[in-house]
């Protein structure tokens, strides 16, 4: 079960990276096409949807990697036991929020599909197709947060803490702005 989940998060993460690469290719292609007077209508829409897909699909992967910023000033000064209570509380709040987000991400896109809503830009497609990245990404994030909550309740340290520690111990600060 754990393995299957880890595979799902990472697969979505790699797919997100593929969309980042896609933005790069589209932007270069658009400028070249403009120079040789080819029509570029719709590229802007595609870039925007790729950007959304890159964002939403990477959520769970990024969360587990410990890249989401939080204020650790207080909790890093706590002993292991109070710290666990704070982690569990944060994760419980996170579970409620991401659950709510996932619920709306699925419900809204389902309605887009049911009422056959189409996009408003140059490219006309059913809007649920690009929006699907939101539903998938939000549901994966929800599951990832629950998984860490279970880990903390069982008494282990959450993955996002150990992953960030390992990265900083290697001297890798490239993921902090």
């Amino acid at each position: 079960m754990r393995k299957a989940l880890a595979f799902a998060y990472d697969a979505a993460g790699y797919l997100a990276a593929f969309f980042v690469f896609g933005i790069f290719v589209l932007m270069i292609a658009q400028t070249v096409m403009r120079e040789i007077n080819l029509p570029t209508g719709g590229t802007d829409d595609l870039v925007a949807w790729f950007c959304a897909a890159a964002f939403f699909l990477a959520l769970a992967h990024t969360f587990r990697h410990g890249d989401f910023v939080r204020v650790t000033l207080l909790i890093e000064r706590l002993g292991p036991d109070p710290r666990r209570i704070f982690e569990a509380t944060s994760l419980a709040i996170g579970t409620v929020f991401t659950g709510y987000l996932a619920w709306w991400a699925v419900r809204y896109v389902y309605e887009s599909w049911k009422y056959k809503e189409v996009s408003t830009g140059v490219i006309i497609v059913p809007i649920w197709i690009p929006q699907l990245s939101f539903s998938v990404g939000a549901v994966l994030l929800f599951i990832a947060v629950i998984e860490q909550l279970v880990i903390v309740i069982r008494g282990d340290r959450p993955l996002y803490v150990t992953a960030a520690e390992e990265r900083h111990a290697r001297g890798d600060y490239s993921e902090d702005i």
Partner: protein
Amino acid sequence: MGLIEIAGLLLFFMLLLLAGGVWIAMTLAIVGFAGLALFTGTPPGKNLFTAFWSSGASWTLAALPMFIWMGEILFRTRLSREMFDGLAPWLDRIPGRLMHVNILGCGIFGSVSGSSAATCATISQVALPELMKRGYDEKVALGSLATAGTLGILIPPSITMVVYAVAADASIIRVFLAGFIPGLILMVLFSGYIVAWALANPEKTPPAGPPMSFMAKVRASGNLIPVTLLIVLMVWVLVKGIASATECAAYGVLGSLAIAWWSGSLTWRNFIDSLMSATRVSCMIMFILAGAAYLSLAMGFTGIPRALAEWVGSFGLSPIALIAALAVFYIVLGMALDGISMIVLTAAIVLPMIQKAGFDLVWFGIFIVLLVEIAEVTPPVGFNLFVLQNMTGKDSNEIARAALPFFGMLVVTIAIITVFPQVVTWLPDVVMGAEKK
């Protein structure tokens, strides 16, 4: 309950969540939800979807992963080594000698990188061991690297500026252009301090290296060709109108990939690592932006920003007093928060206030970027301090003390742009024409 009291209540709730360690992006959205659900009749769920979807599916925001990826690629090349070798021969005769490589190196790297921590890490990984080997003063070396690294977000391109422009709905290119001159002023001030320090403490600067002939210096400068070409490429596609400010980021990636390929560091592994890293960092920032977008939307429905702006207006603060108060507020905020969160957290409230007081949004962008730079070197949370702490094993508070004189130069720059706002607005006005009001 009046709007001001509601605002205070929501603020207290937000600080509680933040201090407890709830992720910043989620905190923003949760507070937004509370504002909508408790104090307005607007359905919170549908608005949550719309705010998140429209923040994510944004053509402007697509520049963000590109600028981040570019930095990630360059971080994995030999660029900083080459820059050190190319710059050092020219600076060896100035008081302070190679210490100036820190400033100039960060300034030049800042014009291809949009991140402060990445600039600091990239330049320090070469400059710091070289300076220590030659016996330079460690305190000044650390202080100058920590602070000059922040030039990465003041000299365009800048990830922080992209975030600000999106949050403030200002033109990215104008904010980019506005950063140039303050960036140069800051570099002059940094180098000026090093010169003054070196003249006051002559015994602390090691002797110059063996003299080099002029031609040898020029040959050594050949090392600067890759980074120069990259800057030229990005400016050229912009000026020729081939690419917009957003698309110019993709050319930055193209140029960086070319540099990596030319220097042989473009392995498959480096390529995937840099791409994945960029994807995660972008995701983190976009999550904060989406949460902030939802919070702004919610605030708009409650009417709090307008009420607060009027409330602050009722004190009759002069514009200078308002700016001074905001500067202190952001310096305090910057102790605990990172720059991106600082900007998006306050945008919904502070921007209406600023516009009401008659300040230009582009000018305020540079003002806030300078304060974010200060935040990067103020403990306990300052990313440039963390970078150097990790590299040297020194305590971050010690590094922060070493950075104090340079911190002063940042404050001086803020004073300069406040007294002479033209240094910020002149360049964008000349290049783009005066802004339509």
